[in-house]
């Protein structure tokens, strides 16, 4: 096993700088860069390490073993693993706005100035007050929360939740906004290789050589996987050198993209994958303009799963004590990081694999004091190796317990005869076989399969297009990793149409993976943990079994086994094996829980990417935006649009005063409002009118060219979809408008009607919402104002251009424009549409032309006040539950044509005379304010669902009338003009008497409209 001569690079063998105190750092060796020392802090203490270290390896190099406190019992915890499966060494990194909780020290790359703190301890890591929980362990058993915090219910939020949160939380998130940026990117490839160990490198090489587009992702910053952690030979080279040469070849291929520091966290349907690249996590602060992390959405035709395997811990008393580690992790620290995890190391193994640790410890200058092999016999060769290293061998025995307060001092070993003894050691390496990482291949609701040969779950039916290679597929030896990787990588490329490339034939040094797992020791001394992160012990699994929570999903939820950030990477199979034993079943019969993305935690910021703060969602600006901003307009978001709500003037006390002025000015002189936000759909073609007739509930057959008409659209279920106008610009050319909120929905509806319902209609439709800036110019002086804007030669007088006329005109000396005589305010009004690039110019020209007439700009608030004064239904009334009849539009519906919603609007419930129908309201005491949302009750009736007669939909303060007015839907409303009801609004503590009236408050005879 140790016969290979290993060549190390120059950097690796440079001498340790003087004056440093990494007592557990080997004199040479490892893949760290000893020329680049780094300083960091852990719980305020200054420590040192090297570039290439993780926080975990640097802590171990400094002799720091106690790293955190456990979740429930606050037991001292150290470092178990050397990878992303770490359940114990969870720390808080950085400070201030960059403070982040729950990072595994085993994957945190060391950088100069790194600040790390232990979590879940108070007042300090060494003296943790809540460690008394451990003394009360019996009451903290599985189901404790369910059983204890049940009664009384009033205590749930007041007492229990804060209590539990304080005691059981992990780290602290930053309270200030994250100062870093996050990026996202899309990538496409023929072959995606997940994992950059020997199998993944081989697969990428085979696929890359064939010319396929390859993406190779690996969560580590350095590719190589276990090759970096073991002293192995590949062909004539060391594993490390082979990996380096392979990476160099891959990097030379233009169609191969290597994403290191990238975790593939999710597998989705049809070859879609999610990955997060930690672009700058290894730096104190991201370089200027570089993101902190990047979320990748990868689409691959084929995927090779080469994610490797995770070593299994043993379940024995005190197996959570700092110093008890996975044997593979011990070798990683020795070989990759040049760190001795202990000076006196004991090995507890159930297979040949664990014995590799013996030679590695010895080679690094440590002492192996004992090898405890749970199998009854140990081969003479291994025995000789142990003797040569001065280590005792206990075969057929086990480790029953551990000693030491904050770190391991000794283990209690029970031999084959059952007699026990204590062996002093400061590190215990446990090797209980390896579990292939079956998470990713299980994400699409697939279940892994049991492989009896390696006593582990392996991928079952893989997602379409995915194949497994190496340890991830249950092929645990290095030779198999190289072989299967090259094979499936080549096949994946061939499946994508690339010719197979020649393959290297590579031998490796011999390796035995024979093992007989020991699922738990016979008689543990002390608490034997199954799930370290959730403090679930073997006894908790037994309790779950006794209380009937035997199905895996019940076991998980009752004990919390396999939950939290590590998602049971080191514990799932252990829990299953115990339940199998308790229920007398085989492990595969117990089953597995469902694996879901993400594989490891992903920051929400990475998912949000650019879309936060002002970029949380896209914003649409109106063509008059620049002018509105110059004028100090107050903007409001309506859908994605940013619209001016009102234009405050100096001396105005509040919004109401500004809005009142705007309304007054429009009603007495003239105003301009940006209505570009309305949807505008250009409809042309032979059957344009036929389509309009079928989608609109009112008739259009008689609409002449040059005229516009109000339009109401129903949904097929009979409710109102939207309203707008249809203008006939030519014989076969119409422009339909839709409300701001429903513009996209109406366009989609029209496409549906055309493409799916009536495909034979010859219609050409396109949105022109963005082409035209459209301004309402309203008020008695509107015509006078527009005469100063529209080119001479166009007669816009009342006779030539009456109410509801439309025409193509020009402005500004020949710029094409459209003019519509339509009114939402009830005043003499026009809507002028100009090409959007001229929107700013047109607005300014209208303001200039209107200046002698006293023009004002008005915003969406004044617009709303005036439409309420006129009783026009809008979004609050067209609420998805109102019929045309409810809105007082029943009379205009066509009788002699078929249209969407025609039949269903006649359903008995929709024609019930008792339905709430649109009417107006005014407060009996005119000084009182109305509130939208208030419910109507008969005078004297108490508030109850049965007494509910409808609700107020919109309210406004009417400057024209000098008091508040409202629109609402009231049972049999139109029959009840003059009657009084209560407007009951318990949310805002209002209950006032209102009088029912016509919804048209201003100019009911429409005298102002048609002049």
């Amino acid at each position, binding site marked *: 096993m140790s016969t290979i001569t290993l060549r190390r690079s120059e950097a690796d063998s440079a001498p340790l700088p003087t004056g440093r105190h990494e007592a557990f750092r080997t004199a040479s060796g490892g893949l760290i860069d000893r020329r680049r020392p780094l300083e960091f802090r852990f719980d305020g203490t200054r420590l040192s390490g090297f570039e290439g270290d993780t926080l975990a390896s640097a802590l171990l190099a400094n002799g720091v073993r106690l790293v955190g406190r456990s979740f429930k019992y606050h037991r001292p915890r150290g470092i178990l693993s050397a990878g992303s499966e770490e359940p114990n060494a969870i720390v808080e990194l950085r400070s201030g706005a960059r403070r982040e909780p729950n990072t595994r020290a085993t994957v945190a790359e060391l950088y100069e100035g790194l600040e790390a703190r232990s979590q879940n301890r108070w007042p300090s890591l060494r003296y943790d007050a809540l460690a008394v929980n451990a003394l009360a362990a019996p009451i903290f058993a599985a189901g404790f929360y369910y059983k204890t915090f049940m009664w009384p219910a009033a205590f749930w939020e007041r007492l229990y939740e804060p209590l539990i949160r304080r005691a059981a939380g992990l780290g602290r998130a930053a309270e200030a906004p994250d100062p870093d*940026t996050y*990026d*996202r*990117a*899309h*990538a*496409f490839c023929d072959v995606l290789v997940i994992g950059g160990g020997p199998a993944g490198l081989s697969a990428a090489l085979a696929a890359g050589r064939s010319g396929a*587009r390859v993406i190779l992702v690996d969560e580590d910053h350095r590719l190589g996987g276990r090759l970096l952690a073991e002293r192995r030979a590949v062909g004539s080279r060391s594993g490390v050198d082979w990996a380096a040469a392979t990476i160099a070849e891959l990097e030379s291929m233009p169609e191969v993209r290597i994403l290191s520091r990238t975790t593939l966290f999710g597998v989705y349907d049809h070859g879609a994958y999610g990955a997060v690249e930690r672009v700058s996590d290894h730096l104190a602060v991201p370089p*200027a*303009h*570089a*993101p902190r992390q990047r979320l990748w*959405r990868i*689409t691959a035709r084929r995927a090779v799963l080469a994610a490797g395997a995770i070593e299994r811990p043993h379940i024995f008393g005190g197996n959570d004590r700092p110093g008890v580690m996975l044997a593979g992790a011990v070798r990683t620290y020795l070989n990759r990081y040049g760190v001795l995890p202990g000076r006196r190391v004991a090995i507890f193994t159930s297979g040949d694999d664990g014995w590799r640790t013996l030679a590695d410890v010895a080679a690094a200058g440590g002492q192996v004091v004992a090898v405890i092999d749970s199998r009854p016999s140990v081969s003479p060769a291994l025995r000789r190796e142990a003797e040569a290293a001065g280590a005792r061998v206990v075969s057929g025995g086990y480790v029953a317990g551990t000693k030491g307060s904050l770190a391991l001092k000794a283990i209690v070993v029970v031999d084959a005869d059952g007699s026990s003894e204590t062996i002093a050691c400061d590190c215990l390496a446990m090797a209980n076989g390896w579990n292939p990482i079956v998470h990713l291949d299980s994400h699409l609701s697939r279940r892994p399969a049991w492989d009896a040969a390696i006593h582990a779950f392996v991928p079952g039916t893989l997602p379409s297009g995915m194949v497994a290679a190496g340890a991830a597929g249950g092929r645990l030896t290095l030779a198999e990793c190289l072989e299967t990787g090259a094979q499936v990588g080549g096949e994946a490329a061939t499946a994508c149409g690339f010719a197979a490339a020649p393959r290297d034939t590579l031998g490796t040094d011999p390796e035995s993976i024979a093992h007989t797992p020991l699922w738990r020791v016979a008689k543990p001394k002390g608490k034997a943990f199954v799930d370290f992160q959730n403090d679930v012990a073997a006894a908790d699994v037994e309790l779950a079994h006794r209380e009937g929570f035997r199905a895996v999903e019940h076991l998980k939820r009752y004990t919390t086994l396999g939950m939290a950030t590590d998602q049971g990477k080191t514990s799932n199979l252990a829990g299953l094996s115990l339940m199998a034993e308790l229920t007398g079943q085989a492990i595969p019969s117990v089953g597995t829980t469902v694996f879901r993305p993400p594989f490891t935690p992903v920051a929400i910021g990475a998912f949000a990417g*650019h*879309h936060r703060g*002002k*970029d949380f*969602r*896209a*914003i*649409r*600006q*109106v*063509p008059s935006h*620049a002018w509105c901003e110059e004028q100090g307009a107050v903007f409001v978001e309506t859908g994605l*649009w940013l619209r001016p709500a009102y234009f405050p003037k100096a001396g105005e006390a509040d919004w109401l005063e500004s809005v009142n002025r705007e309304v007054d000015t429009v009603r007495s002189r003239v105003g301009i409002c940006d209505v*570009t936000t309305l949807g505008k759909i*250009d409809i*042309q*073609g*032979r059957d344009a009118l036929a389509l309009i007739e079928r989608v609109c509930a009112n008739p259009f057959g008689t609409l002449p060219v040059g005229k516009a008409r109000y339009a109401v659209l129903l949904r097929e279920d009979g409710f109102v979809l939207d309203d707008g106008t249809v203008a006939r610009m030519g014989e076969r050319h119409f422009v339909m408008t839709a409300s701001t909120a429903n513009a996209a929905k109406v366009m989609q509806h029209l496409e549906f009607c055309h493409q799916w319902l009536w495909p034979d209609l*010859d219609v*050409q*439709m*396109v949105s*022109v*919402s*963005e*082409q*035209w*800036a459209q301004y309402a110019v309203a008020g008695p002086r509107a015509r006078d104002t527009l005469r100063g804007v529209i080119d001479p030669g166009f007669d816009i007088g009342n006779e030539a251009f009456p109410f509801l006329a439309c025409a193509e005109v020009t*402005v*500004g*000396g020949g*710029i*094409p424009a459209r003019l519509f005589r339509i009114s939402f305010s009830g005043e003499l009004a026009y809507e002028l549409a100009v*090409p*959007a*690039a*001229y*929107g*700013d*110019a*047109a607005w*300014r*020209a209208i303001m*200039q032309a209107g200046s002698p007439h006293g023009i004002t700009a008005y915003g969406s608030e004044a617009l709303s006040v005036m439409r309420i004064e006129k009783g026009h239904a809008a979004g609050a009334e067209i609420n998805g539950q109102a019929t045309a009849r409810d809105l007082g539009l029943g009379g205009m519906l066509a009788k002699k044509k078929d249209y969407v919603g025609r039949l269903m609007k006649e359903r008995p419930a929709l024609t019930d005379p008792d339905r709430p129908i649109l009417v107006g309201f005014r407060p009996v005491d005119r000084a009182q304010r109305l509130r939208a949302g208030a419910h109507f009750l008969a005078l004297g009736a108490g508030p109850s669902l049965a007494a509910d007669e409808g609700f107020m939909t919109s309210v406004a303060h009417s400057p024209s009338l000098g008091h508040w007015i409202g629109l609402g839907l009231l049972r049999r409303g139109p029959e009840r003009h003059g009657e009084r009801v209560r407007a009951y609004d318990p949310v805002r503590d209002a209950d006032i008497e209102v009088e029912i009236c016509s919804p048209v408050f201003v100019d009911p005879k429409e005298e102002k409209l048609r002049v």
Partner: protein
Amino acid sequence: MTSAWTPRSAWAGFARAGRHGRPQGEPGVRLTLRDGVGLATVIAADGQEDALGRILADRFGWSLPGSGAATLVGERGLVWSAPGQWLAVAEARAGLQGLAEALRGVAAVTDQSDARAIVRVSGPRARGLLSKGVAVDLHPRAFAAGQAAVTSIAHIGAQIWQRDEAPTYDLAVARSFAGSFWSWLSHAAAEFGYEVDREAEH
């Protein structure tokens, strides 16, 4: 009055001329603001696609691109937008004069010259920049000069067509989204360093 009627760039208030983002080295991305471009939606009447193709070829020298394609000669030509629907492009809005007349009865022509904000993206990192927002494979094996796509970028509807193998792309988004789109574009381009050719007018 006439002097005041000047068009305003869709990028006005957002794009600023000069070098931005990573300051070292050559800019990875060049952004060219395209204002005043003539655009029109051309939608064939049912059964008239062949006639449309003939008229466009005879009168304008254009060929009708198939789905996912663009046929541009210089700054003029057609970009496929939807089945039976194309975006006619000309260097200036006057360049499309006569189109509607020529296609009467064969296709609906709708002026869209003001409806889009267009930016030309080039430079060595153009493809990398676009991959941050475009969920379409832009690798040369999958998308080459003369190809076009309608998709969304950063939740904003976008049309993209590749002009040459440099590669150079034209990107068009709805005008009202120009500010939000520029915010995404400048954020995404910052790590490569980018240069904006000129100030947006007005």
